[in-house]
């Protein structure tokens, strides 16, 4: 029969091969981006000189651009994979990591820290700590509002998320209104989102959260396939939708909150990366999840490189993700699958 070879291509051993190819290709692209992006910038540096430890190449490479590149990669990967996860959990192709209020919660925390001039907590910038706490509290509030007794459906979660998002955003508006000119500038700057070099220890802590959580999300890919179809569908196939909903919600929120508390909100990555990949790999989350992480990482590194090199002053990276990613995404959608727009 004609379908036999291709039937094993999409599942079982054939799928394992496709996964290996997908990971290989996107891994090589990401590796190239990670090595090349730090070489570009206001001061040109050479890789051999940096590796040989020559001044100033090595100092710029290791001290400034490499940490920044790594943070961009971790943030991009985390945002893309949690975008794919929230889209599956909420069965909403337009869901993003921020749909359920993570970014508004983090923003409220950061804005509070700026407004009340908190500077640091145990050596860590207070803005980060406050943003993380704000994100977690908002998420807990959304989950609490969404829970109906012991149940929690994607519908109530979406409804609670969108509502609480707007409430929190208006509190931010009030605080912004009351702020001084200097604080107001700091608030707007934070809300625009941006990648800055971090000390290696902080970077290691961020990686220690993002990498294992992302691995768990990839490992549960077959369950996300079921949840992307429906809760009853998942239940009838031996899964526990409630446990998956909680696991996915917590995992996606931890990723997004960790990233957002440091970088501020960076839009579009979580929306367009999974969508672009779905056109290429299909909807199976066993391919989509790891590919989203790697491609999201490469995408945000490229956008951040553009953000710091395109003009004489640095532009916010979220502006680049929208300006570059948006049109690219529209072109991609229109060129493929005209009949099945979304």
């Amino acid at each position, binding site marked *: 029969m004609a379908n036999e070879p291709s039937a094993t291509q999409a599942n079982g051993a054939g799928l394992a091969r496709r996964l290996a190819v997908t990971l290989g290709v996107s891994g090589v692209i990401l590796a190239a981006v990670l090595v090349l992006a730090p070489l570009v910038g206001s001061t040109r540096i050479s890789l051999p000189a940096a590796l040989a430890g020559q001044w100033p190449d090595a100092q710029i490479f290791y001290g400034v651009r490499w940490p920044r590149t790594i943070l961009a990669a971790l943030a991009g990967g985390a945002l893309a994979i949690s975008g794919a996860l929230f889209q599956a959990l909420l069965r909403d192709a337009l869901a993003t990591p921020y749909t359920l209020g993570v970014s508004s919660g983090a923003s409220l925390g950061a804005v509070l820290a700026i407004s009340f001039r908190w500077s640091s907590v145990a050596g860590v910038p207070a803005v980060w700590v406050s943003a993380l706490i704000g994100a977690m509290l908002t998420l807990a509030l959304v989950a609490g509002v969404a829970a109906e007794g012991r149940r929690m459906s994607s519908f109530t979660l979406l409804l609670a998320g969108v509502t609480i998002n707007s409430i929190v955003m208006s509190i931010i508006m009030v605080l912004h209104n009351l702020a001084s000119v200097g604080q107001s500038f700091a608030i707007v700057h934070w809300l625009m989102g941006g990648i800055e070099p971090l000390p290696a220890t902080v970077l290691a802590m961020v990686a220690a959260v993002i990498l294992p959580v992302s691995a768990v999300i990839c490992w549960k*890919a077959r369950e996300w396939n079921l949840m992307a179809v429906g809760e009853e569908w998942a239940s009838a196939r031996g899964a526990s939708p409630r446990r998956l909903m909680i696991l996915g919600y917590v995992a996606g929120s931890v990723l997004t909150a960790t990233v957002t508390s440091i970088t501020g909100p960076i839009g579009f990555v979580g929306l367009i990366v999974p969508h672009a990949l779905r056109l290429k790999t299909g909807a199976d989350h066993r391919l989509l999840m790891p590919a989203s992480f790697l491609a999201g990482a490469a995408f945000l590194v490229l956008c951040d490189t553009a953000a710091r090199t395109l003009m004489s002053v640095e532009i916010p990276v979220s502006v680049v993700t929208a300006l570059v990613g948006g049109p690219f995404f529209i072109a991609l959608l229109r060129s493929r699958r005209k009949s099945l727009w979304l």
Partner: protein
Amino acid sequence: MTPLYALSGTGFSYGSSRVLSSVSLEMSLGSLVALTGPNGAGKSTLLGIMAGLRQPYEGSCLFRGREVSAWKRAPFARSVSFVPQSLRLEFPFTAEQVVFMGRTPYAGGLFESPDDIAAARRAMDLTDVAAFAHRDFRSLSGGERQRVVLASALAQQPEVLLLDEPTTFLDLEHQLSIYKLLRRLANEGLLVVSVTHDLNLAAAFSDRVIALKAGRVEADASPSDALSPASIRRIFAVDAEWLPRSSGKGWIAYGE
């Protein structure tokens, strides 16, 4: 011998509105049961309780001697599969990927085993979906989708197949072919329970008709008894009669 399903005093309420009350019946392997009744009679709810999808229910619903609510999901899904009335997808899964999801209760890891592939392929052969296995599920016709969903349920290699109005969106030819397949599966030893409004399909293919009305069992008998004119009048409040067909079988005509 304990029956496969034993329900006693089973009931269900959505909030304060009671949709099913004190249903008591037993079902065994190797039969095709048609579940019918007017809208809102509780048919889908009863099916959902048996599928483990409506909880908490009142009374008792035993599967293989154990309360449905006490079963762990995965082993239960290896025995009991459920076909919803319709399925809408947000994402570009292919028909084949939807079928393969039926193998999740057997999952031993991230990838399908050769057993999984064999079971899925057999399910696709039975339902005749191989021709469009690689198409986006959302691009299929209603009838094709329903056959894919049925294939996904059969890929679970269940002993019980529960279907909620499986032929609602199908043309006449596919209605008949689905019921022929259900009949064959019942003959092979499965318990098949199908919710239907089509009394003639129920009469032609099932061994037993259970009719619900206002959340209670109104008739539970062979098709000819459960769907007698008097019984149809009592259940559906319409006049009906059995007309002879040239084949000698009967046909239920209703209305004026």
